[in-house]
């Protein structure tokens, strides 16, 4: 695990809104494989791209990106 790992919720947001990887890539102006590498956590975006992704999904940046792993769905329900 890299010390500079950035976690993201792009696959979840994409699935929730029914957006394909290629559509998201076209909207962001990046190669579709870049979206795949982002989702797999193999590439950390620049601040500019991260802001554009958050803007595209119309959510605050911290909803999409985090330095800590996102909790699994339902894990906070006791």
């Amino acid at each position, binding site marked *: 695990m890299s010390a500079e790992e950035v976690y993201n919720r792009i696959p979840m947001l*994409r699935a929730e809104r029914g957006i*394909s*990887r*290629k559509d998201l890539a076209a909207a962001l*102006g*990046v*190669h*579709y*494989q*870049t*979206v*795949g*590498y982002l*989702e*797999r956590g*193999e*590439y950390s*975006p*620049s601040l*500019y*791209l991260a802001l554009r992704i958050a803007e595209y999904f119309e959510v605050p940046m911290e909803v999409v990106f985090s330095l800590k792993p996102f909790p699994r769905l339902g894990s906070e329900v006791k």
Partner: protein
Amino acid sequence: MTGWKERWQRSQAEVMQRDMLPAWYATRERRRLLAAGAALALALSWVNAVVAWVMGPTEAQRWIVLTLLVVMGLVYLPAVTLMNVATRGVTALAEQQLDERQLGERLRAVALAQRATTTILAALAVVFLVNGMFQGRGHTVPGSAMLYLFLALALTHFVLPLIVSCWRLPDPPPDDDD
């Protein structure tokens, strides 16, 4: 002029996105095999230069060099074409056609390749120096050897970043959502 350049860059970018013979670069092992093939072709170009230098302009030398050039071309052309498609033109396309991840990958590949070419240039300088010391002032290097040396150096300079990029390339994410 600009229109022609743009059309060329666009068509080059389109070709790089086509899945030409995908089985040849589907796995990391196969991509590394392609990179090794291209490296072998480069090595042959250096062997050519050495043969031309050591044997001088003889009939036997011409045949050896010609055979090596044919073998080199047969390995080099398909390997470089497939490596360009596998890397989606990371080292071949114009900068404005690449995104930030691809540009970062290109910079890393060029930086690593430059280290290798610096070592090659240093080794060449040593070879020329040692040759000059032992052969004396009157000794000349055959013109054909210089030509093949230039060819080997130019090919190495142009193709090494692509080889490095193809060697490092992780498995691309599957097209799972269309």
